[in-house]
């Protein structure tokens, strides 16, 4: 493997978060180095999207430190935070395209708002990204005319239009057919290899995670239970991880009386 620059693009330390009184994340420590693909895995509801929201500065940090591209997110002013975000790209789970604009206008929006490029250059740049996502010819369609997988890819095209140093991708393959999701996996690898992006992918798909990840972080009920390469994960003897690898449902031995009590509890 090529020797990588060891500079970190993301450092999270001792992060604790709450929604109201409910604790969602506990003692999160995580770092991602430049040019790395980090996959964050976990059951649904384990706090993956919440972690992303905190990293992106969308929620106010109460406890812990998050450093994004060497800047401490909580200490930035509003304008500094917006400036920092121009260097990152985020693809949301649903695509989050603006319904009132065409796909093309959606993808060009960051260039229109954040750069002084002329109209022609912007058009060409957006065509390149659409081509990359195999979405050529859709630029004049409205988001409502696209399928779920196409929306996700259009969202990804918008996220990478500014050639960000760091890309976040929430659930790329959730709800997609195997072929489309395999294509997305290849695309993620391609973005890292050709455009030198560092990429953080949130997913609960094992196969996709093992295909693209340099390292995998496993989140369970708001706690990180393991960070490591694929080999480390495969060798782990933590029962929660083994269950996940073997796609076993979490089984608690069932006590009939206790079960009945739980169901009938007022």
């Amino acid at each position, binding site marked *: 493997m090529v020797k990588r620059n060891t500079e970190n693009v993301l450092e999270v330390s001792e992060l604790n978060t709450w929604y109201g009184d409910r604790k969602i994340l506990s003692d999160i420590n995580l770092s991602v180095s430049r040019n790395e693909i980090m996959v964050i895995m976990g059951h649904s509801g384990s706090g993956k999207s919440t972690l992303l929201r905190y990293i992106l500065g969308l929620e106010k940090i109460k406890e812990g430190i998050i450093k994004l591209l060497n800047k401490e997110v909580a200490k930035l002013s509003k304008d500094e935070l917006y400036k920092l975000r121009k260097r990152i790209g985020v693809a949301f789970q649903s695509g989050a395209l*603006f319904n009132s604009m065409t796909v093309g206008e959606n993808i060009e*929006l960051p260039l229109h*708002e954040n750069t002084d490029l002329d109209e022609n250059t912007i058009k060409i740049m957006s065509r390149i990204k659409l081509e990359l996502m195999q979405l050529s010819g859709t630029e004049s369609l409205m988001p409502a005319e696209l399928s779920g997988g196409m929306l996700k890819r259009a969202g990804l095209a918008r996220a990478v239009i500014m050639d960000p140093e760091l890309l976040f991708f929430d659930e790329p393959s959730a709800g997609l057919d195997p072929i489309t999701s395999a294509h997305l996996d290849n695309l993620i690898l391609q973005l890292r290899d050709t455009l030198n992006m560092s990429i953080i992918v949130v997913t609960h798909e094992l196969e996709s995670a093992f295909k693209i990840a340099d390292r995998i972080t496993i989140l369970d009920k708001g706690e990180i239970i393991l960070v490591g390469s694929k080999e480390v994960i495969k060798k782990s003897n933590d029962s929660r991880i083994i269950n996940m690898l073997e796609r076993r449902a979490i089984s608690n031995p069932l006590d009939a009386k206790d079960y009945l009590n739980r169901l009938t509890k007022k």
Partner: protein
Amino acid sequence: MRLQLKKIMLSNILIRLGIAGIFLYEAIRSLLIPPYSINLLLKQILFVGARSVLVIVVAGLFVGMVIALQFYDTLVRFGSISLLGSAVGLSLTRELGPVLTALMVIGRTGSAMCAEIGIMRIDNQIDALECMGIDPHRYLISPRILAGILCVPILTAIFIVVGIFGGYFVGVILFDVSAGSFFQNMNDAVLNRDLCMGLTKSIVFGLLIVWISCERGFNLHLDKSGAYGSEGVSRITTEAVVISSITILFSDYLLSALIL
């Protein structure tokens, strides 16, 4: 117990007002600091203003006709039909024009703005804007607020003009009040002061409608009391319409009392 409940409610209301205040501050701050986007503003002017003209014309016409009818019936009893022009002119410029236009704009534009921004919130589109380094206050809210402040007074003016024409139609054409006395009387009665009152009201109403409607949609996620998703959007849209209607009527009284 009761007292405690009241305290909690009061502090909730204060927190809400604070959040709404910060929201307005952010939007106005973006209005004052360049860069400006003319495109976004024009789009909103088209939506708030141009597309509402027809509704306002129709409403203004009927309102003008009905107040002329009512005043005629009343004035005839006192034998002072010559006052019809001033009655129609004053009631339209001071009260009915600004208030009814505002209520029409709430129904047509405020509700749509609230629902649109609420949907953007629940679909993470507002988060997406933030993540692109685009300030959603600047991009979404400021153009709407400016369009509201610019368009509502113009719509109000249209309402008043069409309303006067409706009054003229009923008074002069149907009931044979002389056209000369109708307009002369109106001209004598409606002063600059009255026009200023109407203008002030309509500017304030424009700001209030857009502020309340956009804030409810934008801060949908802070509302812990109910469901999110499509039900949440429908609930806050209703809420926006009710709150802005009541605020308009209340501030109408307040402004009248202050200016008179």
